Structure formats: C-alpha cells, structure tokens
C-alpha cells in the first residue's frame, strides 16, 4: 500500500470536496439550520467543512449527514456513465471521456460522510429506531458500514468506492437500457 498525503489527494480530486460541502450546505439550508462557517476547499485537514448548528430533528440530522453521500454517489454514477462506455467497454481514446471519468471518480471518492457526521447519527439513531423511525432504522446499518469504510480510507476504501460506483452503476444502467 503506498502513501499519498491527503492534501495531494484532495487537490487531485477537488471537485468531489466541493460537491460534498455544497451538499451539506444545501441540506442545512433546506432544513433551515444555522450555518456558522463554510469552507468549500482548502489545503488542510479537513479539505472542506460546513459548521452548522446541531438539530434535534433526526430527519434534518440524517439528510445533512447523508446528503453528500447520496449526492456524490449519484453524480459519480452520472459522470462515470457518460464516460464508462468509451473508456471501459468500447476502448475509444477520447480525452473528453477520460475527463468525465476523472470528474466522476473524484466526486465518488468524496462520498463518505465524516466520522463526526456519522457519530451524531450513530448516537441518535438507536432510540428512534426502537420507536420505528424508518430513517433511524436505515441509518443504523448504513452508519456502521460507513464508519468502517471511513477507517478504510487508509487502504483507499474511498477510491475503491468511487471505482465500484463508477463501474457497477453504469453497467447496471446499460444492462437495463439494453433490455428496453
């Protein structure tokens, strides 16, 4: 396993950082949470952040924490789908396609919510899950998996996730389209 400083990775994949923070901000605004500060990208750790008030509303907590995961994953699939065929299946040397693949993977790599975001959900979810809150029920295993994957970043789990989504997503889409 080779080591590349996080700042270099963040620089190479900066669109993903920006999308991640923009998604946080979007959901904060959607749920009318106070936002104290926003950094869309910087050379530091973390590469971006949104400081917002804590909410007692679990739905708001869920979407603010998981929003970037969903948004980055979807955009990764969209851009990788635009590039998947020429890059992987058709093996056409098209620079535009490679650009889209870089964009898609960069976005997909930054899908994981931070450990802080997940810890809020992890603490609040069990009590609500017992009361039958669907989001809390979903967020329990999801947070668990994402916490593990977050630790897996040292072994490139984030890149692995980006590649997985950027390859399997388009394959699934095209398989369905081919049947239409």
């Amino acid at each position, binding site marked *: 396993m080779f080591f590349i400083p996080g700042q270099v990775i963040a620089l190479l994949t900066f669109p993903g950082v920006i999308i991640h923070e923009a998604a946080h901000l979007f959901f904060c605004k959607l749920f009318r949470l106070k936002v104290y500060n926003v950094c869309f990208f910087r050379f530091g750790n973390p590469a971006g952040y949104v400081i917002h008030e804590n909410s007692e509303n679990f739905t708001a907590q869920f979407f603010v924490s998981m929003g970037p995961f969903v948004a980055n994953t979807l955009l990764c699939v969209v851009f990788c789908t*635009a590039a998947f065929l020429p890059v992987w*299946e058709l093996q056409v040397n098209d620079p*535009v396609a490679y650009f889209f693949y870089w964009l898609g993977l960069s976005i997909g790599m930054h899908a994981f919510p931070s450990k802080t975001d997940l810890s809020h959900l992890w603490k609040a979810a069990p009590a609500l899950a017992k009361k039958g809150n669907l989001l809390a029920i979903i967020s329990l295993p999801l947070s668990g998996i994402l916490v593990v994957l977050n630790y897996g970043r040292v072994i490139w789990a984030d890149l692995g996730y980006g590649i997985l989504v950027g390859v399997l997503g388009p394959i699934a889409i*095209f398989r369905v389209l081919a049947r239409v």
Partner: protein
Amino acid sequence: MDQVACADCSRKLSSSEAYELNRKIYCGPCVQAAAQRAKDSGQLATITRYVDKSICARCNTYIGDSGGVEMGPVRLCGPCSTLVEDWPYPQWLKLSLAAFLVLLVFALIHGRKYFEAGKSLYRGEQLIEKGQYQQAVAYLKETLKVAPNSDKGALLAAKAALLSGDLLTASQALEGHEGGKFEKSDKPEFREVDDLWSRANRAMEQLEQAAKLDEQDGNEIEAAKLVHGVAALYPQLPHMDVLVDRYDEGVAFVKKDYDTFISLAEKDWHIMPVAATASALASALACKYAVTGDTAYRQRSEEMLAKARELAQGDKETLARLDEFGERNRYRLESRQIITKNEYDRRFRSANSATH
C-alpha cells in the same frame, strides 16, 4: 473586554483562558473546585469555555453587552447573524453548477454515439446468450463501426459471426481490432473465439481439399468423408446439411444407387430451392431415366433443368454452368449412358478441359 476576573480568586485573566460555570467566570485552577462545590450542593456542574459575548463570535467585531443577536451559546453581529440564518451559495459555486449542467448536456450529446454503440454491444451480448447469433452480428457490427478496437465488441462480434457461420464478418471483426492483436489473449473470451476461429479455418481447408478431390473421378467417397468431417468440426457453416448431401449424392452416383441420389437431391431441392439443387435433381432424374427408361423421369429431369435456368436468371456464371450441364444432361437422356463430366469432356470436348 479581553480581561475578565475570576469569581473565586478575583485574578484578572484573558477571556480565552477563562471558564464558565453556572453563569460565573472562573480561572483554570478555581473552576474544578467550584464545580465540586456545585455538585455537592446539587447544582449543575457543567464547565464550558468562557465565551465573550461582547464580541461577535464569527468576526470578532465589538458589539457590547447588549448589541448583536444571541444565537444559542454565542452572540453575533447584525451582518453575521443574517449570514448564519441564511448562508448564501457563493457566486462561483452557482456558476460552477451551471458549468456542471452544461458539461452534463455536452456529455450526453458527445456521448450519444457511444450510448448507441454500447446499447448495441449489450443487446448483441444478450442475443448471443439466447443463441440468436445472426441477429447479434447485426448489432455488434454497429458497435464496431464506432469502436473497432473494443476487445469485448470485437470478440463478441467474431463469436456471433463464427457461430452463425459468417466467417467474413468474423475475420473483419478480428482484423479490425488493431490488426488482429489482442493484449489479453489469456482471457477465456479470447480463447473461446480463438478455438472457434481455428476450427472454422480447419473446416474451410478441408472443404477446399474435398472440392479438389471431387474434381477428379474416383475420389467421391474420400471427398464425402472429408465433408462429413467438416460438418462435425464446424457445423455452423451455412447450408452444411445441403453441402453434405451434395457430396453424398456424388457417392450415390459412383455406386449407381440412383434412388438414394434422387432422394437426397429431392430433399435438398425442398430445403433450398435454388438453381444448383434443381440441376442436381435434374441430374439424378436423368440417371434414373437412363437405367429404367421411364419417360416420367426424363420429363421431370427436363422440367427441373428449365426450373434451374429460370432461377438463375441474371446470374451469368450460373447460367454458363447450366449450359455446360444441360449439354451433358441431354446426352444422358438421349443416349441413356451415364458417364462422368470428366469422361464426357474426354470424349466430346477439348482434351485440355480440366474442370467439370
């Protein structure tokens, strides 16, 4: 405003070093003792960092003790409180989002040909899985127009073509892929196509050999054996059953088994009603007439030859072959003598003629 006094020891200290407990300010050493006292007397003992509410928590602007807006544990100045309540999206982010959408539209337009090619690729793959090879070839040809160097596309097209007996398309698909080079030649997909291609080529060589043998009298049985071998080796070759029958008819001819000759020719004429099968049936019926003298066979032989000519209209090469065969067939009907083409050539045509 930067200096505060400890509620216990009255020591002056910087506000950044101060703590707050039950609305009182303490220095570091006193706050623990104060917390213990609060706990003992049943009060809350939560220690927090002291926040100087006379300055804005965001921009450090002095707002005094009553200015600004209180938001939870902090106080903000007017502009900052507006910002915090409804943080705006930066202009550059909005422009980037617009650029993103433009990029997405561009990606869709630019990638349209790839979408079509990819769709054909997956459709072709699915048709291969269903065993519909000929239909798959049509789709995969479309893919190769856009991406001739696609490993998957070329191998699937070659596979589908080979399994439908279309060697020309298979060859074009493989040759079109970087001159027939495949980097990952250890992949099962490649090995499968390589095996099919080798079998098809061996079959073609054997067919050529059989055709050469068939040109000479006395080799009909050996030629038929070879063609039966071809049918086992590469059964996907189009009209293989008719081809096998065609050589078996040759064997029946040399064995003077004209009933079998007629039966095979009749079968092939029904399977594939073209000039070649019509003339083969005409030949078989002429043989039967020659040995039986039954004019019904003669009449039908002549009818089949006329049918063959009718089917060959516009095809000069086939018409020329039928003219040549018609002359021999007439001789067979008139003389009731059954001789091979080579024998006929030797007796009645130029001595240099080598084909029949």
